């Protein structure tokens, strides 16, 4: 059951990611939608991993806010399709993918050889619930939490300053 869900999700996630990444899709709005799909499928992963709260957060913040923002910008700027890859720097074309693949391979190999557990243990009661995370967040991670909120404020101001024509 889980495994089935896992495979389905994997296919969806990787596929949508490929759509976003692959230079063969020129239409940026499509890519954005694919990314949104990818994010939702990741939320599915989180559900599978008993991280309810994070899953919801993923959907609300990522799919619901960030992606909408990106879509908004795409439509606002009404950007035309991406042009073909310039042939100017060919090594970019093969070296890049090669490095990326190498990266993935190394990680997978490391994970395999690391010989970590093959199965997840039984989660403790109330794992991944809002309460559990909330407690952690406001006790041990209180200052990081405040810091991140500060970061948000700064980012907001920065965005306004950058995007506004006249202040």
């Amino acid at each position, binding site marked *: 059951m889980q495994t089935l869900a896992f495979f389905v999700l994997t296919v969806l996630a990787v596929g949508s990611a490929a759509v976003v990444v692959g230079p063969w899709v020129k239409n940026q709005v499509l890519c954005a939608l694919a990314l949104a799909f990818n994010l939702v499928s990741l939320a599915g992963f989180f559900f599978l991993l008993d991280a309810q709260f994070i899953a919801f957060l993923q959907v609300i913040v990522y799919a619901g806010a960030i992606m909408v923002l990106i879509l908004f910008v795409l439509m606002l700027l009404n950007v035309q399709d991406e042009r073909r890859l310039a042939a100017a720097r060919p090594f*970019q074309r093969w070296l*890049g993918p090669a490095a*990326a693949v190498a*990266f993935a391979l*190394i990680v997978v190999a490391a994970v395999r050889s690391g010989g970590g557990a093959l199965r997840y243990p039984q989660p403790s009661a109330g794992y991944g619930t809002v309460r559990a995370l909330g407690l952690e967040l406001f006790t041990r991670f209180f200052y990081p939490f405040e810091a991140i909120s500060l970061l948000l404020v700064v980012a907001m101001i920065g965005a306004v300053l950058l995007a506004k024509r006249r202040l």
Partner: protein
Amino acid sequence: MLRLIGLIPLLPVAGVVINGLFGRRLSRRAVGLVACAAVGAALALSIGAVVQLAALPEGERSFEVSLGSWLPLGSIDGREVGIDWGFALDPLSALLLLVVTGVGFLIHVYSVGYMAHEPDVARFFVYMNLFMAMMCTLVLASNLAVLFVGWEGVGLCSYLLIGFFYDRPFDERTGLSCADAGRKAFIVNRIGDLAFLIGMLYLLLEFGTLHIGELGRAIGAGHASEAFLTGAGLLLFFGACGKSAQIPLYVWLPDAMAGPTPVSALIHAATMVTAGVYMVCRMSALYSAAPEALAVVASVGALTALYAATMGLTATDIKKVLAYSTVSQLGYMFAAAGVGAYTAAMFHLMTHAFFKALLFLGAGSVIHALHGEQDIERMGGLRSKLPRTFWTFGTATLAIAGIFPLAGFFSKDEILWSAWSTGHRAVWGLLLLAAIVTAFYMTRLAWLVFCGEFRGSAATWGRVHESPASMTVPLALLALLSIGGGWIGIPKVLAAGADINVVHHWLAPAITPVGGAAVHGAAQGGSAGSAGRGEHGAGDEFGAGTGFDEEGEFGSGGASGTGGERGAAGEFGAEGAHAVGAEHGAAEELALIALALVAAVAGILLALAIYRRAGVAQRLARQSGPVYTLLRNLYWVDELYDAAIVQPFYRISRISGAFDRWVVDGLVNAAGVGAEITGHVVKLFQTGFVRNYALMFLLGAVAILYYLATV
């Protein structure tokens, strides 16, 4: 209130903050109001505190607060050393505190009127308030470190205020601008302060504390060698020379007159310049234990007193005359401290604060009336136009000349007497001469300004006007003080034997007299010293006798940190010659008083004789020839310093400047060139295409990852 003394320095700071931040937006009157209010509050608080202090029994009239640790220095050879941010109020600091805040307040009020037509008043009052804060810190400091903070602070403020009119020229003879004058004052003070700092650190290393009381006890316990104490004392005294304008560091004070007149009155007459004297009295324990240092103090003081007075004879700038007079009066105080009569020094400090502030303010009023004219050659006959100023100024003149029964008389006479009675006859002689000269040039000044014919242009004469109330009222108050201020120190002989010398009883607990003997010995003007000698065996009896009168009180007062058993010894020494000693001393003292009075009167009459009729002075100047030019050019000391110190310094600076330009900068440039060359190579990587950077980044990441995964 006593617990609040920590606030006294902070109240003016409030003024600083308000005026400093919003001064430009506030109206002139508001600024003045804030400043005066700040100082007024400090004054009120000080009075309250001092009253409470006085309420305490004489023995424990000393209160300390520590606002927490300031410099925890770790351990110096074994002892845990930490410096607190501590304030202390004892009779000594109380006296000066009252003088500072009181006179300071009056002068602030005066400044409101005086600065009415000057540019950015806010800045002025910010500096003034800051000065008050620093001065209070200095006075209240319970350890030398805090005192030094105040010390430097007032130095800074004095620099700022002297250069207040930084854009105006000041002295045509030396071609200084006001800014230069400020710089001069600052640098000269630095020299002294350095010595002070060194002395301070020596003490710290020796005793592991800078707390004045503890220092006193440690010294009294006699751990340190006398040589060491002498050295430290001299170092500190050199600092005092800088701050209090004594030979050889007096040169800055006359130029300090570049500042606005209230500043001269407050800083360069009444308070800051007396800090040196205060410091010496504060460290009386140290100096009393180091007779050689004390001797130096005395001689320097006496010399300065006469030397500066002579320069006052020929100066034509109204404020400079007063400046020289200040220097010489400070000399007086140091001389007093030098012969061991710290109380006399403080007494004179106080009275001097009154009449000298008054003189300056009067001068300020004159200058104000004449729209900035300062040359007495272009004044005269102002008495009719400025009656109030005239009367107050006149009073102050008599007071400084030492005419009975004005404030100056008592303090000056007391100093003379202590010098005489402690056997420093030479000091006494110098001081007496100085007294004559003082009386002379002060009379000259007063006469040239207020009497005779007006020598300025008719236009100016037309516009002369008496100053506003905000200026004349402080004048009046100060006049009263300079009349009555001395009556708290009436010597016994004049009081028909009744002992009503408040100052001494007040100050005694805070003073460690020479030899640490009978604290109240100073009651009859420095005979404390002789009482000490009585203890040393080689004493002259009347000193011991008069010292003895007070023994009873001392025994009951019992406030001296050290001199307990020695006081007793002094008592024995005094026992025999008590009866004879008293009136013998009295007769001699009366004679001296008379002599001093005669001297003063003589000086005055001489001045009148010369200046009543025009031309006499000029003829005199021509006849005296070289002497006159010598005085006129202030013994060419400035030129001497310039040639001996400043120019060589410049030359060295030029050499090292060249070194810096060619060698140091050369190295720097070499580094720069190297970087540039490297840059030309490295820049090839910078294609400007983000994705290339990303690629590089990725390659690096992969490499690291591979390393981590394999190793």
